[in-house]
């Protein structure tokens, strides 16, 4: 099931509606304008039965309409491709795509967040704006995604997405206390052409 979730950067904008629903709607609209993204990530997994956290890093690219390529470089190289047509596939050493079973949800979440299509996320999560300083002031903001269904909640307690002008971090909390943190650094972004 879901193990890690990433989100793309959010351009700095002036939000006209500061209610939670309005904030999320505005955020989604702006994400929807993103045409392409490139960046690096650092991921840290805290698994209770392991003595030390697992740290990995790599790059990601997002192209609207084509999907996401998630390239883990250290300490173990792997490539995952997520596209609307093929879903989630792991690309092996010979460049052959291998479908990942039961990964439909991961694909929906990845593509939903990158494309700003929050409506697809609403099928699975309650999306809430954590009250605090608003994006109007260009300060820190945070979204919390809570699973709607028990089946998903048994694997994932919640997802926290935080950022200022861009999404800066994402944290996944599992029911047993394990957690995964991903920190992003976007190196290139562009709006889609109209």
């Amino acid at each position, binding site marked *: *099931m879901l*193990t*890690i979730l*990433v989100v793309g950067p959010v351009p700095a904008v002036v939000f006209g509606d500061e209610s939670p629903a309005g904030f999320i709607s505005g955020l989604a609209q702006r994400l929807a304008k993103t045409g392409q993204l490139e960046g690096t990530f650092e*991921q840290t*997994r805290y*698994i*209770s*039965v*392991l*003595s*030390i956290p*697992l740290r*990995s890093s790599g790059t990601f690219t997002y192209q609207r309409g084509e999907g996401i390529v*998630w390239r*883990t470089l250290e*300490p*173990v190289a*792997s490539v*995952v491709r997520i596209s609307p*047509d093929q*879903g*989630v596939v*792991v690309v092996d050493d010979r460049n052959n795509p291998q479908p*990942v*079973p*039961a*990964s*439909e*949800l*991961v694909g*929906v979440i990845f593509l939903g967040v990158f494309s700003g299509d929050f*409506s*697809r996320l609403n*099928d*699975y999560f309650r999306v809430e704006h954590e009250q605090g300083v608003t994006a109007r002031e260009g300060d820190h903001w945070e979204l919390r995604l809570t699973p*709607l*269904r*028990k*089946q*998903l909640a*048994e*694997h994932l307690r919640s997802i926290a997405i935080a950022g200022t002008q861009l999404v800066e971090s994402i944290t996944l909390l*599992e029911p*047993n206390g*394990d957690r995964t943190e991903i920190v992003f650094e976007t190196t290139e972004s562009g709006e889609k052409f109209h």
Partner: protein
Amino acid sequence: MSAPVMHRYLVGLWLLGLLIGGLYCGERILRGEVFQSNILGLIPERDEGGQSVYSGVTKNFEKRFVVMLSHPDPHQGSALAVALKEKLAQQDLVDMNGASESLLGELRDFFKPYRHQLLAVETRQRLLAQNPQDLAASVVTGLYSPVSGFRLYPFADDPFNLGGAWFQEVFPEAVRFRGTEIPSLRAEGRIWYLIDGQVRGSPFDLASQQALSTVLDDFPSQSGTQMGDADLLFSGVIFHATEAARLARSEISTVGSGSLLGILLLVIAVFRSRRALAAIAFTLLSSVLMALTISLLVFDRVHLVTLAFGTTLLGLAVDYCFHFLIKYRVHGDALVAGRLIRKGLLISAGSSIAAYLVQLVSPFPGLQQLAVFLVAGLVGACSAVLVLTLCFRELPSASLSPWLIFFSTRVEPAYLRLGARRLQLCCSLAAVLALLAGYLYWLGSSDDIRHLNSSSQSLLDSERKVQTLLGGIDPQRYWVVAGQDQQQVLERTEKVVAAIDDDRAPTARLAVAVTAMVPSLAAQRGDHALVASRLYGSDGAVTVMCVMLQSDCSQWQSLPGDVLDELEPSGVPATVAARFLPAALTTENRSIVLLRQGALPAQRKLESMAELPGVTYVDQVQVLSETLKSFRIEVTMLLAAFLGVFSLACIFFYGRRGSVVLVSVLASMFVSLALSAAGGVTLFHVLALLLVLGLTVDAAVFYLELGLNGETWLASTLASATSILAFGLLALSDVPLLHHFGSVVFFGLLAAWLITPLMFQLARGGTVPASLGLKS
């Protein structure tokens, strides 16, 4: 007691009988559950040694139904699917599947202690083939990857995800679904929402069908514009049963109305009398009430196909009344008319009844019911006509002269002319019969049960599409594996599965067996030993993995624990087993191995598996088709024997003139079969020949008894016309069985109506009037 008083008593008694019959039928119909529509109810139950398995497989499958909904806008689709599921759940006779979350939890909890002794085939192969380094590296790579696929147990409990792989092998279709409120999957760029459930009763119960069809029929209109471009797919026996029942009801209505209308028009055209119409209505009412009452007394339920076919009874029942009314018109006295037709009526009805009674010998419950229905109906019609001879009075009304003149000026001369060419005609007839026999031999037979399917193409397409989306199981072909005890059954089952799938990739495996969920104890011990040595041993993969992850791994030192020798199919919770058909059907001494839809192993595999001890291959389609074939042969032999006995009876009663009946019967049978069995002769064609026989004898006997004259010809023409109309309408049926019957009898009657007077003329060797200008 004087004769008139006795007659009044008899008439009163008959009317009282009709009243009682009417009340009984009315009460049964109002009470409900009188009619059934299961096409398999027409076919005898099989005893192939695996009948209880067959019943189990069939019953398990036949109650399930699936509706899949897709909308270009997934949110609309989701909302519509939720609404539809809610509406279906409100039905008393329907249970919706919806507890998959709790079911998954139950399954996970139950199997958790056994997770180290239940391996997917692919996992077993990997453990055998890979070294500990590769096995560990695979897990570590997964931990650093953003996606790691389905997990049944947390990493801490099952670091090598043995449970996830096992679950995916048992329920490969489950992991394709998205965890939306209504389970959904993406295929060909569309999202399909799954709404599935079971009907509580039989899918052939009209109440079950109504519970489902009411919602599904009304849903598009109730949803209004939301439905828009939504697509609905249906899969399940109940949809086919509902369609078949609707078809049967529609055809009962069409054939019944058509027959009644035809009879009405004929009576008006020929008799022009309200009393004649009332006499015919009385005969029809007596016949139908008698047929329905006796059928309901003998059988719990009457099949809709019986009723649809039984509507042709209207055409048969009215025949006797026509003969009576015409004789009455000529002689003006009911008792005289009765005396004149009595012998012909009894011989004619007797031969028809005998022909139908032969069908009682048939092992087909549907045909037995049909025979009882028609015999009772004919007895009712015959009795009603005899009652009419006691009480019928008619005011002076239009003469039959125009029709009788038509016979003497047009019909009779034509037959006389033909009869004059005796030699040529006999040679031609012999040649035609020989040609037809050759043609029928060339046509051969057709016994494929699938040809009896009456489902529409759109429903079949819908069914196929759902099977493609969900990857269904073929309920028609499977292996039954028997053994002395549970473990022997499981070990034998594993051999069958191995024989089917050993050379196949894990994703292309065909067999679906209980051993995927619960292997034999020997296999569980083997898997446990493999896991203990390859994964958790001192130099196993877990040690390597912990080095790679720089962890002490104390958590897993106690794994995998001791093997647990207690997991058997009977111990699996019923709610879990119910979702995995092979588990649900496994008993102490038997299991079944099913195949995925559309797949069939090579013939050599089938043959090699037949040699395994305790293993029986069952192909329901083949078994049912073989059943049809053996019954077709049996009924043909029976028909031949009946014809032999019948020939002797004809010669005994009518001497040389009996050849009229015989040749008429043979010619009608050959013609009808040749014209209606283009796709090969089926069991139902042969059975319909019995009806042709009975009806042809009807016509011939009346000619022999009453002579070839205008009155007999008119009565015979009217009788044939009504039956030809009824069976002609039946020949247009979309239900293959009814179509076969209808077309055979239609052509048979037509042939009998044309040929019988000619045969009579030939047998009579009649002279030709000089005015016709031909030698006799």
